[in-house]
């Protein structure tokens, strides 16, 4: 099996409503797939089905034997009621050696935060801590659910750049739900546009010309995405030179 994960004809019905309809999705090695779609389109449900949280009502999910998933949730609300610092959080249920911890925290730029209480982190720091936790068991597939939703613009740019670098260096696969379309254009190889069923999917450049995409997100969005493509090509060439 060449792909890490393959789902065929997934259907999920909840309270009489079809949440997911005939979804086919294949995640290959070193893929970067982004799922976009309006609120309530079933994006999170799809991720959760693929991770095995819920059983789909019908359809098949095949996982490669050595598939290791690292999951980055949308957010982790840590109020001050639970006293826990970053290092302790990373080590819950994880037997990591000090060298591994140092290595990965340097990679995700949180090595200076280890003794800080979780509740004192900024939104961007918290997302990097969650990303670190997802990387600890050395996954070959990272699944992220709107990881930068609660960050400001510079925080988003910082996070996606980091994610892109991890993707390049670790040669893992990424499946991500994201509303940050401009960022999606920069890194993704494949965009899946979901509205209960898969409306369209393909390379970012092709997606923006798809009538289904335009009907779902409007002409303005298609234009905007096309605009960002330019910077994508630019960045891509730069990384090839480096």
């Amino acid at each position, binding site marked *: 099996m060449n792909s890490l994960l393959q789902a065929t004809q997934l259907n999920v019905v909840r309270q009489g409503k079809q949440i997911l309809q005939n979804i086919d999705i294949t995640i290959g090695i070193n893929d970067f797939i982004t799922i976009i779609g309006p609120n309530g389109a079933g994006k999170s449900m799809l991720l959760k089905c693929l991770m095995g*949280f819920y059983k789909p009502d019908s359809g098949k999910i095949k996982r490669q034997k050595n598939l290791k998933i690292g*999951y980055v*949730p949308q957010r982790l609300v840590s109020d001050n*009621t*639970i*006293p*826990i*610092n970053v290092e302790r959080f990373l080590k*819950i*249920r994880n037997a990591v050696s000090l060298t591994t911890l140092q290595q990965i925290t340097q990679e995700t730029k949180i090595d200076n935060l280890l003794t800080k209480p979780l509740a004192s982190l900024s939104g961007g720091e918290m997302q990097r801590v969650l990303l670190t936790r997802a990387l600890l068991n050395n996954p070959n597939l990272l699944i992220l659910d709107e990881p930068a939703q609660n960050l400001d613009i510079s925080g988003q740019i910082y996070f996606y750049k980091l994610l892109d670098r991890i993707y390049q260096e670790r040669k893992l696969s990424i499946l991500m739900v994201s509303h940050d379309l401009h960022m999606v254009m920069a890194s993704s190889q494949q965009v899946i546009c979901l509205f209960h069923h898969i409306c369209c999917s393909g390379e970012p450049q092709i997606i923006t010309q798809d009538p289904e995409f335009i009907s779902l997100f409007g002409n303005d969005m298609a234009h905007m995405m096309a605009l960002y493509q330019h910077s994508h090509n630019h960045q891509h060439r730069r990384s090839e030179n480096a």
Partner: protein
Amino acid sequence: MLEPFLMRALLAGIGVAIITGAIGCFVVWRRMAYFSDSLAHSTLLGVVLGLALGMNTNLTTMVISFMFAILLLILQQKKLLTTDTLLGILAHAALSIGIVLISLLNQTLDLHAYLFGDILTVTTTELWWIYLGGISVILLLIFNWSSLVLMTLNEDLARAEGVPVLLTHLLLLLIMSIVVAVSIRIVGILLITSMLIIPAASARQLAGSPEAMALIASLLGVLAVILGIYGSFQMDIPSGPSIVVAAVLLFVLLLPLSVLYKKITSYYFQK
């Protein structure tokens, strides 16, 4: 040498304080204060059923509390009403049905002792229940500690990392049912939540990790029990409220101290 009844009271109180302190942290972290209060209300029904059926009341109380917790879990999933409304309905229903049953079955029950606790009349059998229940609770907590903490921080993350979330949730409810069932004789239905929350809240100010918070909460609970029983004996006041007052005094004393401590440490860290 202490009188035997006082010795039993101290042992019972210390046993209860150790488990309520530790599990109280989860009550604070997961905002289950109202839930534990409702669970306590449901115990009266368990006591009455135990008396009516001629069974051990500790056992029936545990079973009724656990059933109460599971019923709540099921109703929560249906999302018909918000959790606090559901809790309000279930708790007062259980309490009232319990009291109605007492008079219908012509049972004699020292209601006051169950509402406010009566630690000074604890029997040796009840001590066994407290310590066997306590040890099983501590063992369950230790073996599932990481899963419980991770689930408390983020349920989806725990699920993605292979924690059986539903099972762990049920386990927490079971632990709470045991704790509440063995504790009501000590501080009573109306005051059990305070033994869960006050030591944990005091410990929060002093602890730097979840484990430390649980340990400190247990220690503060034990201290409150010793002070409370001493005060109850010396001043001839009811033991349950006396213990809670001691716990509150510790909280009030520790709060300014911990603020001061934090100021000093942050001052040194900045330097």
